[in-house]
């Protein structure tokens, strides 16, 4: 039983388990498309860290990036991919399995 639990913990998707990336994917899962500026405000990450984490998620195929302009200002937008959504759901399922069951009243 312990071995199974340990294996489950080791199987956790490390790409999502990191708090910053988990926060980014969670925010993206609530919308169709989110701009960099909003992600910055809602997560409170620094620009450099947010950029780096988003690149990692993009490299993993969990996030798609679109670059455009608002007037003359460059704007970067992100959207979660179906693979990212699936991985996030699997991560939540795994995490719930680790939690001790609530005693019934």
């Amino acid at each position: 039983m312990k071995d199974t639990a340990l294996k489950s913990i080791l199987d956790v998707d490390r790409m999502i388990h990191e708090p910053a990336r988990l926060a980014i994917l969670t925010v993206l899962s609530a919308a169709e498309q989110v701009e960099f500026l909003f992600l910055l405000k809602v997560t409170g990450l620094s620009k450099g860290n947010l950029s780096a984490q988003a690149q990692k998620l993009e490299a993993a195929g969990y996030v798609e990036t679109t670059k455009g302009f608002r007037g003359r200002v460059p704007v970067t937008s992100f959207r979660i991919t179906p693979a990212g959504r699936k991985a996030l759901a699997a991560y939540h399922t795994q995490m719930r399995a680790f939690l001790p069951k609530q005693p019934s009243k």
Partner: protein
Amino acid sequence: MDSDRLTHMQDVTRRYGKYRPCGAGLGVLWGGFLLGALALMLLEWAWHEYGVHATASQTLWRFLRDTRLTPPGWLQLAAVISPFVAWLGLVLIQQWVDGRFGAVTLDATSECPPWRPRGPQWLPPVMVVVLACALGGVMVWDGQAFSRGVLALLAIAAWTLVWGRASRDRLTLLVMFAVSVPSLYVIASTDPDANFTAGNLLIFATYLLLMIVLIVQGLTRFRGFLRVSAELSTLRPVEE
């Protein structure tokens, strides 16, 4: 990272995406201002014509019903450019709002709560195009094949394809609908065989009423936007 915090972040994102469109509701004020200004211009012109040409026993309504009036050039111009200026203003207001916290676009299916009847998003722009074509047809039928008025109606119909495709927010589309339709009737009243002026006053009154309802919705949306913006500023940063 605790799940409550993640849920809260999702909730803030959804609410922000819900309240953000139509310049966080402020776009409605812009649309209302334009429609109100156009209505005032129409009323001022009608009142002036009434003062100059009416007989002593004629009421304003009777005068407008019985007299063939053609709107002056400045009123026609104001009517033609209203939908263009309205949309450009909405875009600028939206850009200003998005410049503060960024844009969030929600899935089309999540924008409307399940208990509220969903109207098709294409209906307001399609109604404007149909009306423009119908009024243009009436003008051509009356023997003014492709007069300036018909071309203006077609220009507004073509512009509808731009704003109708660019937004799927119900409030934005209804604001553009409420600004565009009265403009169509002002332009159609340049048809010398028609006598639209009295009817136009009723049409403007109807659309101003619609705009008041939209302004209430816009202000409610703006209040929600202010709340969620304040919440965004107080969120704790994620551990790096």
